[in-house]
């Protein structure tokens, strides 16, 4: 058994400094005064490794709590803070300084399906990222893995409690696995995180004792811990509460049936599933720093501090600092933008659009906020479907020189200036500079603007003949003009759509005819599902921790169809009728081979090394063509909000703007804030 200390995963000089420098340059250009804060983490990096040896909670003076909770304790409605915290609470690192209690965060959301803003504020898993994007213990105190990384043992924090005060033990994990995830009525199939191999063999769960649990996989699973960072309905469930909605476990089945019918559900598992969502059921015990006070289907969704939250700051103050979080519904983004410039949004990146950067900056003063810039994971990129059913097009796209030509035919710098005010960086679709897997060789492959080379390559590829308009003809002698359709969901008037239109003009300049068609999203999904797409325009994201979510690189991601048919074939094990088997000896087989090896490679350095081998293929073959990336992502931060720093990547994998422990964000002076 090896003990995982935080440093064991290779540390890399984190690129935030450069990120802040870039953001600063933009900010200065716009007349703002933002100075980067030092990037030291307040807690020592090895705190987690030491923490198990730390002294258990002693006299009541050791921890303190928010005034609103202290009142409840004084009134006898709540046990004292020492009893609510685990024996060894998580000491949260803070980005700037330890804070003070109070205040509300006001944010916006678009309806129940837009549950991610509130969810990412409050969901908690066993582990989480530090500022260097390495995984650190969070709900778990520590963990160990065996030599081939197929067995993961986690140690929970002893004495941790659900938001209703019930002890949180490994029973929560057992209950989730045995009564929910593997219960075929509730969950007909087991989620991808908990199975191995193409046969989807489920893991085995071994409950060692109340605070120790081992996950055993039939195959090595070295990246498992990365999947445990954000969990809201998986991994653990409050069985003591949910039991009453579970037909197999409830004490009174008739009463449950009556309840199900009264609530208007067809079956108990639907009702159970409804009750299991924290944002639909305020009564559901939770673990995160805030708990819901009402349902997300309201116009105003309220969250209030969880009195049993397991984290403290280094002064022993129980977190979170912020009392309440409220999300207000909006239908169109104009309304949301208006709220921003009116100063009614306290902290949010979601739905804040870089296209309106100038508007936000202009109103910084009157709205009393700052626009922070982080780096978004998305890119402007085109995917040529190399498995398209159109045979002539298939041949065209599968010529490497053609893809290179379509990369160098485009003047990235000019589009960047024209459409994006120069805010982006010309690059291929590639891990961000702040990622541990960053690979400049691939990021910068074939990004020069060289129309002569493009013409030369296309001519040599056998597409030299042109029609009277100067567009190239198919090479089959039919005399028909070569053309293809680029599909996407970018709507007219957006910067995204402007970019693709500009790219099409550059294609035309080298004689390649293409047209863009914007689709409603589900129609687009239908097309790609049937491998009907010729080419697609879709920003590639997941570039921060690509190892967690590599499917775009490995041709396993269906909705970025650089080879939709191959992806369907691979994902279904050849059974999907829309799937197409790649030609023998094609480089995509090598990518799959390498990825299958990464999946069972326990050593982090080697994982990155091998991932770079995949990127080498990408640099060589350009499976998809990226034009611009490192897009700055605006985050609205009201003046007086502390502990969130500019310059961090914003990606789903790392929780967007919630990366730096939301429970440690605070109001410098909560009394002056409206509630």
């Amino acid at each position, binding site marked *: 058994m090896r003990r995982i200390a935080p440093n064991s995963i290779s540390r890399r000089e984190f690129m935030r400094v450069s990120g802040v420098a870039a953001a600063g340059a933009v900010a200065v250009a716009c007349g703002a005064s933002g100075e980067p804060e030092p990037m030291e983490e307040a807690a020592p990096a090895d705190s987690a490794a030491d923490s198990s040896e730390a002294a258990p909670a002693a006299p009541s003076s050791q921890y303190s709590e928010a005034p609103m909770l202290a009142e409840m304790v004084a009134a006898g409605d709540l046990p004292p803070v020492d009893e609510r915290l685990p024996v060894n609470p998580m000491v949260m690192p803070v980005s700037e300084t330890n804070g003070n209690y109070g205040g509300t965060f006001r944010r916006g959301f678009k309806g129940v399906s837009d549950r991610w803003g509130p969810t990412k504020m409050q969901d908690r898993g066993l582990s989480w990222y530090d500022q260097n994007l390495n995984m650190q213990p969070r709900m778990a105190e520590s963990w160990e893995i065996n030599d081939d990384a197929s067995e993961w043992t986690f140690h929970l924090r002893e004495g941790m409690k659900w938001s209703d005060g019930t002890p949180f033990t490994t029973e929560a994990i057992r209950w989730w696995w045995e009564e929910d995830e593997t219960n075929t009525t509730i969950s007909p199939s087991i989620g*991808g995180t908990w199975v191995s191999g193409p046969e989807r063999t489920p893991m085995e769960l071994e409950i060692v004792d109340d605070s120790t649990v081992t996950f055993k996989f039939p195959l090595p699973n070295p990246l498992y811990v990365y999947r445990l960072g954000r969990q809201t309905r998986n991994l653990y469930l409050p069985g003591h509460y949910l039991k009453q909605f579970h037909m197999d476990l409830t004490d009174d089945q008739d009463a449950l049936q009556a309840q199900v019918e009264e609530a*208007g559900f067809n079956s108990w598992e639907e009702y159970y599933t409804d009750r299991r969502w924290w944002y639909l059921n305020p009564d559901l015990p939770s673990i995160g720093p805030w708990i819901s006070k009402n349902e997300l*289907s309201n116009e105003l969704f309220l969250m209030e501090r969880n009195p049993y939250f397991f984290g403290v700051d280094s002064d022993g103050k129980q977190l979170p600092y912020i009392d309440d979080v409220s999300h207000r*519904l909006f239908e169109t983004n104009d309304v949301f933008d*208006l709220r921003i*410039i009116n100063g009614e949004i306290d902290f949010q990146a979601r739905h804040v659009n870089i296209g309106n950067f100038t508007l936000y900056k202009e109103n910084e003063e009157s709205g009393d906020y700052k626009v922070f810039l982080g780096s978004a994971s998305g890119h402007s990129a085109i995917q040529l479907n190399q498995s398209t059913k159109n045979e002539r097009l298939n041949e065209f796209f599968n010529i490497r020189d053609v893809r290179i030509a379509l990369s160098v035919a485009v003047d990235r710098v000019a589009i960047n200036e024209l459409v994006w005010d120069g805010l982006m960086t010309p690059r291929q679709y590639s891990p961000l500079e702040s990622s541990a897997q960053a690979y400049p060789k691939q990021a910068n492959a074939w990004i020069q603007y060289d129309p002569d080379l493009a013409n030369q390559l296309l001519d040599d590829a056998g597409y030299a003949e042109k029609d009277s308009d100067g567009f190239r003809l198919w090479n089959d002698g039919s005399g028909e003009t070569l053309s293809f359709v680029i599909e996407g969901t970018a709507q007219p008037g957006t910067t995204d759509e402007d970019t693709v239109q500009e790219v099409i003009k550059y294609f035309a300049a080298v004689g390649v005819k293409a047209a863009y068609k914007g689709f409603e999203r*589900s129609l687009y999904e239908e097309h790609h599902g049937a491998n009907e797409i010729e080419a697609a325009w879709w920003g590639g994201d997941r570039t921060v921790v690509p190892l967690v979510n590599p499917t775009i690189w490995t041709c396993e991601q269906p909705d970025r169809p650089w080879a939709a048919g191959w992806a369907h074939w691979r994902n279904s094990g050849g059974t999907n009728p829309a799937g197409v088997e790649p030609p023998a000896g094609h480089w995509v087989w090598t990518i799959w081979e390498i990825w299958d090896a990464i999946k069972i490679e326990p050593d982090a350095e080697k994982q990155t090394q091998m991932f770079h081998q995949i990127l080498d293929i990408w640099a060589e073959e350009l499976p998809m063509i990226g034009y611009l990336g490192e897009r700055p992502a605006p985050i609205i931060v009201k003046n007086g909000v502390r502990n969130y720093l500019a310059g961090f990547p914003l*990606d789903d994998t790392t929780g967007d703007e919630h990366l730096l422990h939301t429970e440690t964000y605070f109001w410098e002076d909560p009394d002056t804030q409206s509630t």
Partner: protein
Amino acid sequence: MLQYIVQRILLMIPTLVAISVLSFLIIQLPPGDFLTSYVAQLRQEGDEVDEAELESLRQRYGLGQPVHVQYFKWIYGVLAKGDWGQSFEWQKPVKELIWERLGLTMALSMGALLVGWFIAIPVGVYSATHQYSWLDYVMTTFSFIGLGTPGFLLALIILFLVQSWLGMNVGGLFSDEYMLAPWSWGKVVDMLKHIWVPLLIVAVNGTAGNIRITRANLLDELNKPYVETARAKGVKEGALVWKYPVRVALNPFFSTVGWSLASLVSGTTLVAMVLSLPTTGPMLLRSLTSQDMYLAGSFLFLLSALTIVGTLLSDILLAIVDPRIRLE
């Protein structure tokens, strides 16, 4: 009269059945289903949904079943239990969702309708009786501008002006503190503070159109012999105009009041979206784009039912107001 009404009501039943079938079919027409758009959304957020999970979700929502099975399940629930089904997207019973928003929508639309006619009738009458006077030109200009400006544009402009001049955000119908509170005097006052903006915007279009209609109809009537006769007999001009030709000129009001029942629910959609109002319009639009079947189906059904009921009401009203109309 009574026989006429009964006949009409009986005819409504097959119409409603046909409409319910049609609306359900129409929702099913676009490719994909709620899950396609739901999964699309999940993927956009980086959630992983693999094929097996997708299939299990499809089973749960009963989307794998043939359309007619889904339809009968739904209509049975509606008729037998008053259960309109569950909204997939909002994960709430449809009934609750619609009722929650219907009250406010009705208040807003009715208010706008009444305000619209309240202004339009006197202005239209003045315009017609003082045709080609300078005030007539002024009003005509205004009503054409009102007709030509889409409500949502007006809403955007007003939002911007109020924001930049008064620093006030006029979106929504309530302040934060009242949004979730139960109805109280304070909440009503708070609503009145907010509702005048959308009311005005929604009313403008209707008012402008109504002014033109009233004016044109009245102009037609004013030259008719019965007006001349009345005038010749010495009836005072004011009483004459208001008592006879105006009454006839108002026929369009009564014949359209029926359709406006349906537009009460959906008519203000664009304005409501721009102003972020908690009314039914935006919800209807979203349920259609996300193929949230039962919610969309219930809305379409409700709208159709309202149109039919409205038409009946119109006919009855017209029959009462205008004695020239025969019932056979």
